């Protein structure tokens, strides 16, 4: 080494960190919807999307307006919502109870986990005729189908969540002499709540799918019946109006769960 060696130019260290941390960008979701709908509107008006393929978004909106004005919207929506509420509530609450039992008791786990695994992959829609025989053609069979469909994913999410509760917190509860019931109520259930709620998101989406399936088979009013009727007449505007209602229902349920999460799980972040 001598003084004659020319020192190379300093190079700035290249930044290579960052990323992998998605942030909430509030208006992006809306922008995507607006963009897609705008493309469809321009396409159907311009004629390069034929009216047989897709209806004009503005026509769908008009159909929606008619539904609203004629009062038919609520005539269809009210029974659907009550079916969803009753069926979903029954399925989710039994699912949470069974999931907690599986999470806490060895015998419940050994006996019920294989059963749940056997039931889970059955397409519940395939059982609809069976439910009609068991519970009749009226509301009960619809409640049963929706409840059955929400039950299995809720069970799986709940016992997974109970398994993930920090054991050191449970040991702490025992070391302070807390009763078994107190440990379950004050440590296990709140600790499992994040997992239970994220399971509920999936269960309720499944409940909407099954709602439509149940209503396609023998229901006078309901979103499913409305869509089925529109579909058999190839009335694409009404078909899409129905589909939009279902999507909105999904978005609303997901928002409600998000709200509950913020209320109950504020301690997380």
């Amino acid at each position, binding site marked *: 080494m001598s003084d004659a060696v020319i020192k190379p130019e300093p190079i700035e260290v290249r930044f290579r960190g960052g990323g992998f941390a998605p942030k909430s960008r509030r208006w992006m979701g809306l922008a995507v919807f607006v963009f897609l709908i705008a493309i469809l509107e321009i396409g159907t008006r311009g004629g390069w999307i034929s009216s047989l393929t897709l209806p004009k978004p503005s026509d769908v909106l008009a159909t929606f307006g008619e539904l609203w004005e004629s009062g038919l919207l609520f005539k269809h929506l009210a029974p659907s919502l009550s079916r969803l509420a009753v069926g979903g509530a029954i399925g989710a609450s039994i699912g949470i109870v069974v999931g907690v039992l599986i999470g806490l008791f060895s015998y419940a786990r050994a006996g019920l986990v294989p059963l749940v695994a056997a039931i889970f992959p059955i397409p519940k829609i395939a059982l609809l005729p069976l439910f009609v025989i068991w519970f009749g053609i009226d509301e009960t069979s619809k409640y049963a189908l929706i409840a059955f469909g929400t039950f299995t994913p809720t069970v799986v999410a709940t016992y997974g969540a109970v398994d993930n509760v920090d054991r050191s917190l449970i040991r*702490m509860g025992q070391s*302070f002499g807390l009763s078994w019931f107190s440990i379950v109520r004050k440590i296990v259930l709140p600790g499992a709540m994040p997992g239970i709620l994220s399971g509920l998101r999936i269960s309720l989406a499944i409940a909407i799918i099954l709602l439509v399936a149940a209503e396609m088979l023998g229901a006078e009013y309901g979103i499913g019946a409305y869509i089925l009727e529109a579909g058999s007449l190839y009335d694409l505007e009404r078909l899409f109006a129905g589909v939009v209602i279902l999507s909105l229902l999904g978005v609303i349920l997901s928002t409600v769960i998000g709200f509950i999460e913020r209320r109950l799980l504020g301690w997380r972040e």
Partner: protein
Amino acid sequence: MDIRLDAISHAYGGTEVLRDISLDVPDGKIVCLVGPSGCGKSTLLRLIGGLERASKGRVLQLGTPPEGCLNPLTYVFQDFALLPWRSVHGNISLVLEDHGIKGERANAIIQDVLSRTKLTDFSTALPRQLSGGMKQRVAIARALAVKPAVMLMDEPLSALDSQTRELLMDDLVALWTRQQFTAVYVTHNLAEAVRLGHRIVVLSRRPGQVREIVEIDKPLSERSHGDADLERTQKHLWDLMRDEARAADEELLDV
């Protein structure tokens, strides 16, 4: 209340972790358990508090716990074990609720233990807002709230940085000086042992046996960081443990 360990042995499956340990924990004294990693000192602590059952031998309580004692054997854990969804106040009231202490009576106890651990201003904070040292002070406050006869402390300062550890050691000494409590204090940090222990029990590596019991007579309040006589004791302890610690470190884990 004293604690006596009567010939405790313990095994997990075929692995013997503790062999024939007899020990007295006298009232109002802090007994430190030190030993190389994996010597079963935390297991021994779980046996003392009844969180695990010894394969052989018995743990005995001698005498009755003091009046007003809700939970005679009370743990302070290394990972704090605070409920993240409850505030500081809620975490302490958790251990009172089951004893039917609610409302004003609970508030009085909580205010008292929070002021003793210098946490009065933080009663509404959630655990995630607190530093490690503060979390451990909350855990200590929670332990004090049930007026324990014996505190079982499982490496309470090991998850903290060295400055926080010094501060908390001073806090523990101050707490003990104000109101002398009985404690079994498990640690792998010999400096903590010589600062806080009246009696230091050195365990051998697995299967853990009592190798030596060192008594330190100097009062806790007169001890400080870097005292020459404490340094000597610490060196003596380290000489006892060094070879075992190395051998333990090189062991394969198959527990």
